[in-house]
């Protein structure tokens, strides 16, 4: 089983929503579409599902061209950011609804709904209506509806975006397990790099209707092909600067920050990309370099501390573990972990592969 987009392009009027895309998703994989709002995640999913037709290009499923095939005939299911359930149906009826339409016997429906409900911890709520449930339970119901059908293709469009933090964490942990022994292709759209890392599988980074990079999630994260992909896969935003290499010395332009490295690349001009969590208030790794920082904003996010700082013309973000309180305007020292630096050439391509 595989889903393949061949030269797919989507235009609405004069606007191009999806630039020519080639993508092949394999059987039994979870594929994350990672990109900000309006990156084209939803459009891409709708094209995959058959809810929308590509302007040009073809969609192949299991070696068959399914480009014009209606969504009802494709055996796919979808979960949305909003909690979509039939408002007048009970949880049981909601989960059973996709099966009823296909005309499966009621004994079997009962059994399958029971199984899925148990999997999603809904067994106690089968007789309730959606508006009596919490947001998390409503979304679980929607997920159950998607799972009960044994679809070939399951599309999840930011399913956790409307949940509060705790429920999101909980469901995010469960999600990969739900799909573990299912014969299907899962596509998961999200704006949050953290989601992609937790879910694993494969990731496609998207920006402005273009698939920037597709591969194993960890590979895309640690070896972004280019600066754009690295930026998409970084939250808080990646810190970048123009640098100059001479011998073993790397120096940031118009700035006195410099470090030494035996990285085998030609002398010349490069761009550096440093993820916020590689700049910390404490030393990490064996090779770190100090940077003077003037604190702009210091804020806590969960058990992490986010410090926005300046150094000369640099305006960067650092992310440290634990509570690191800094005062606004304070001059302090931060440490950058050189081993994790990403170097890009003038065409924004990564130069220090693995």
């Amino acid at each position, binding site marked *: 089983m595989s889903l393949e987009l061949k030269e797919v392009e989507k235009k609405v009027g004069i606007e191009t929503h999806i630039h020519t895309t080639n993508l092949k998703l394999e059987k039994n994989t979870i594929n994350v579409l990672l990109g900000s709002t309006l990156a084209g995640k939803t459009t891409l999913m709708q094209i995959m599902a058959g809810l929308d037709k590509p302007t040009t290009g073809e969609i192949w499923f299991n070696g068959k061209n399914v480009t014009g095939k209606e969504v009802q005939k494709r055996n*796919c299911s979808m979960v949305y*950011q909003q909690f979509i359930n039939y408002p*007048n149906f009970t949880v049981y009826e909601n989960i059973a609804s*996709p099966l009823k*339409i*296909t005309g499966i016997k009621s004994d079997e429906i009962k059994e399958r709904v029971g199984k899925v409900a148990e999997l999603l911890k809904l067994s106690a709520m089968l007789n309730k209506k959606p508006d*009596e449930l919490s947001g998390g339970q409503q979304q679980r119901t929607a997920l159950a509806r998607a799972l009960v059908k044994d679809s070939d293709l399951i599309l999840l469009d930011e399913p956790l975006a409307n949940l509060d933090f705790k429920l999101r964490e909980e469901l995010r942990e469960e999600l990969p397990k739900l799909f573990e022994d299912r014969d299907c292709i899962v596509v998961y759209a999200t704006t949050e790099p953290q989601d992609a890392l937790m879910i694993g599988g494969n990731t496609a980074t998207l920006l402005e209707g273009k698939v920037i990079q597709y591969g194993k999630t960890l590979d895309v994260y640690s070896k972004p092909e280019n600066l754009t992909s690295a930026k998409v896969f970084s939250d808080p935003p990646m810190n970048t600067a123009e640098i100059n290499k001479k011998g073993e010395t790397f120096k940031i332009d118009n700035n006195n920050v410099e470090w030494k490295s035996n990285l085998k690349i030609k002398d010349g001009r490069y761009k550096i990309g440093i993820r916020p969590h590689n700049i910390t208030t404490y030393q990490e790794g064996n090779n770190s370099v100090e940077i003077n920082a003037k604190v702009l904003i210091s804020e806590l996010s969960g058990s992490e501390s986010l410090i926005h700082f300046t150094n000369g013309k640099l305006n960067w973000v650092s992310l440290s573990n634990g509570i690191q309180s800094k005062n606004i305007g304070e001059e302090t020292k931060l440490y950058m972990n050189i081993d994790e630096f990403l170097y890009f050439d003038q065409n924004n391509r990564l130069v220090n592969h693995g």
Partner: protein
Amino acid sequence: MNKTLNQKAWYFVIPVFVLVAFNAAVPLMTVVNYSFQETFGSNVFAWEGTRWFKEILHSERFHASLGRQVIFTFIILLIQLPLGIGIALTMPKKGWGVPVCLILMSMPLLIPWNVVGAMWNIFALPDIGFLGNSLNSIGFDYNFTQQSGDAWFTTILMDVWHWTSLVVLLSYAGLNSIQPAYYQAAEIDGASRWDIFRYIELPKMKKVLTLAILLRFMDSFMIYTEPFVLTGGGPGNATNFLSLDLVKMALGQFDLGPAAAMSLIYFLIVLLICWIFYTIMMKDEGRA
């Protein structure tokens, strides 16, 4: 800490009390006052107890006009709700058609009620009116000033023309608030158009439809101006609805006592039906 007693805040509430008194309590109490007394003019009153209420409740005239009123309202709701929902479903959801449709739909609602009555009176006149004349020329024996069936037909047609838009606008607003994802989800499930209407659109429109039914019930149950101008309650008493009858009794015959009693009964009927209806419709709400 010692609290000093200071009740000056009550002064701020006085304007509201005065306003409410003048727009609700005082006029209503005047009617209550009349309903229990006999008036002889020049402000001479005699206590009559519940006599007028008994009289009205047993009067055939009241029964007849109440019956007409109930039938009229029932027909109005039966036509306007499905028609309104139907029109709302066919209205465009985006593009230039939206403002055009909305303006066209709002038009009847913007016309003063007595103008609507006058318009339809002239429109339906059997000799010179476009509608009346056309109907007669294609072979119908149509004359709303003389045949009660025709009078009913014309009154209902006029009300449908005047007020269906309200149901349309409310339904349209309700439909537009349904997120597109619902339709997509239904499409993926393979639901038919009827399923979508029955299981998504109708439940999602429940609140606005409740409002539409309430508004249409109240307005049609209290209809006065349009039939007053169109038929004046005639021919005979054929379209003599409750409020028309009430005004005839109060200002035509100057039977202030019975008219006041009738007003109160009328008011209580409207209040009661609205309350029952609202309670039933909203029974499931408020749990979420």
